[in-house]
């Protein structure tokens, strides 16, 4: 009996130390994530100091040209063009993704639904550069008639006006490719919140004689509003950061591109990848500053999105 007792005490003494080490290790791992984000921010800030000091933050955010050698550069036009691609992508991706999510959560029988989910996840796993090449070689010639048609019939809207006859490499085509790439994120989030719409209310709506569409409009969509908004922001965050697909598809322009249909588009990330090889030290510092801008943009959008999504969708949530 005494032997067991001493062992027990021995055990009790040892246990905390093992767990202290374990807890400390786990905490360090967790803290690494926090530290990493801080280090990314600081490293980009330090490296962009030279460029930002040269032109000033205000000038950097508004200047519309990129000639680092002459000390004239800024993200004025890049930021605008980035947001334009993001907005075009969302205009396409939001309706498509919401329909896909409704199809998965409401309209399909279980087997079809899970097959569709798999396909959407597969779409998310496709490499960016392949999307870009496909957009360049397959989509560009096939979208041309549509661009032409829009330009002919909707030219009274400034964004659809064209001043040149080339439609390749436009914001519109980049937007379509990016839309396809960010749709899986939005679809996953939306479908997750649609599934969670309370079945009591669904059944009540149907029992009162509502049609399925009526039930979706009055129960599922209002319930999933938070997820839709959050998922849309998440998709926007992905859209503005999309790099290689955009580089491959667009014909880069250094000016602000208001006309989405005509050749010439750009984004911050695409510009970084495109001009990386030919930059001198000040050019690299300027690109770091552009990267810092993009970092802050995506960080704010993503953090806000995940707060909104987590508030709506509890328990796990989609892991994309």
């Amino acid at each position: 009996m005494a032997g067991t007792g001493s062992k027990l005490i021995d055990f009790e003494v040892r246990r905390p130390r093992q767990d202290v080490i374990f807890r400390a290790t786990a905490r360090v791992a967790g803290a690494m994530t926090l530290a990493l984000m801080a280090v990314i921010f600081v490293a980009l800030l330090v490296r962009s100091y030279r460029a930002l000091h040269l032109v000033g933050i205000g000038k950097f955010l508004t200047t519309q040209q990129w000639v680092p050698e002459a000390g004239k550069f800024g993200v004025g036009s890049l930021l605008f063009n980035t947001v334009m691609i993001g907005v075009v992508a969302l205009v396409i991706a939001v309706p498509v993704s919401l329909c896909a999510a409704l199809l998965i959560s409401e309209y399909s029988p279980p087997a079809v639904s899970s097959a569709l989910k798999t396909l959407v996840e597969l779409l998310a796993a496709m490499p960016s550069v392949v999307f870009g090449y496909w957009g360049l070689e397959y989509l560009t010639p096939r979208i041309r008639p549509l661009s032409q048609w829009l330009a002919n019939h909707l030219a009274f809207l400034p964004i659809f006006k064209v001043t040149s006859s080339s439609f390749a490499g436009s914001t519109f085509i980049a937007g379509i490719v990016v839309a396809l790439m960010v749709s899986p994120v939005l679809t996953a989030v939306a479908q997750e919140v649609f599934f969670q719409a309370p079945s009591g209310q669904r059944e009540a709506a149907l029992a009162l004689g509502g049609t399925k569409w009526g039930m979706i409009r009055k129960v599922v969509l209002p319930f999933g509003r938070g997820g839709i908004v959050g998922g849309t922001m998440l998709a926007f965050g992905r859209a503005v950061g999309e790099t290689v697909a955009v580089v491959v598809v667009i014909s880069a322009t250094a000016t602000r591109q208001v006309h989405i249909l005509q050749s010439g588009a750009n984004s911050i990330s695409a510009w970084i990848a495109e001009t990386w090889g030919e930059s001198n030290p000040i050019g690299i510092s300027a690109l770091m500053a552009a990267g810092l801008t993009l970092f802050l943009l995506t960080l704010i959008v993503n953090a806000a999105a995940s707060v909104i999504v987590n508030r709506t969708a509890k328990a796990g949530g989609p892991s994309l």
Partner: protein
Amino acid sequence: MTVQHASPAPDTATRPHSGGPPPRSDRLRLRGWSRADVAELAGALLGSFALTWLVYEELTTLSGGLGFVVCWFFAFLVTYWAMARNRLGAGAAGDRLAAATVASVGLLLVVGLVAMLVYVVAKGYHALRPQFFTKDQYGVSPLAKPTAGGGLAAIVGSVEQVGLATVISLPLGIATAVFLTEVRGRIGRPVRLLTDAMSGIPSVLAGLFIFALLILSHVLPQSGFAVSLALTISMLPTITRTSEVVLRVVPGDLREASYALGGSEWRTVRRILLPTARNGLITAAILGVARVVGEAAPGIIDAGSSPKVNWNPFKGPQENLPLMIYEDIKSSVPADNIRAWTAALVLVFLVLVLFVAARAIARRRPGGTRRPVFRFLDRKGPS
């Protein structure tokens, strides 16, 4: 589907009923398709196709392509709506219209995916030879055929870079997931939030960050390892989030049993939690690999391409598959543009294999326990 009367029960087989009276044939049908529904859909599709053909191709000067499909789609919606309205009334017709619209627009995603896969295969298989896996591009003349040389340099680079990234991010990601599920504490919430935010960091920024931190300060040369570190940043949140979900569904009573037997927290994690979740953790690793294997941006910034095989990831430029594709697309040599498709086919196939493997492993039952812990991965439809 709308509520309607079924034709004499073709679906009674789905209802297990033993001995009792057969179900009434006029019971309400809440799901499924009656023969009239199918006929209506087919009729609307055919009729609208014929109408569009007549007007679009024959009577006007328009022809071909996207415009035809768009016109057909709208003609179909109108026809379908009118037929439903005729038989079932305005309310049900609106419902049908909504269902048809949602289904066709939602399926655009699948159409996009299939169009891309088919195109990649169609473009890529011509120039794919076994030597793609054994030869590099070094010394291949720009005038040589697209089948000359191969992608060995890129394949070696991809394997080494992604392998190193996995070695770094897997332990770190799982440790973070364990922290999030078992330890938490005050920094739990911010860690979770930032993991989410981190998963949204574009890979180009990850590459830029490694360049800013390590390469500009001469800690590392531009090399495959620098790319690995950048890939780690993209991989980490995927592994953390997936592992967290997997660890969270390990049943609480397994943990409690371990604690009740006097097991320490560490032993519980080491002996109970991780072995139970093993398959899920493997899936997390594969998903992480699939997430970064197609990233070209870190390679553009941190390594640079080289046509020659470079076995050493710590020194000199080292290519990888997406980088090779990118360089070949940008190249002005026609043979290179074709090689890009070949490499794209290999890369897409690789991603497909990883994807299928991840799903297959996730579906396997965990070792050591009899509980189907991964039921959540098999969840189907609204419950």
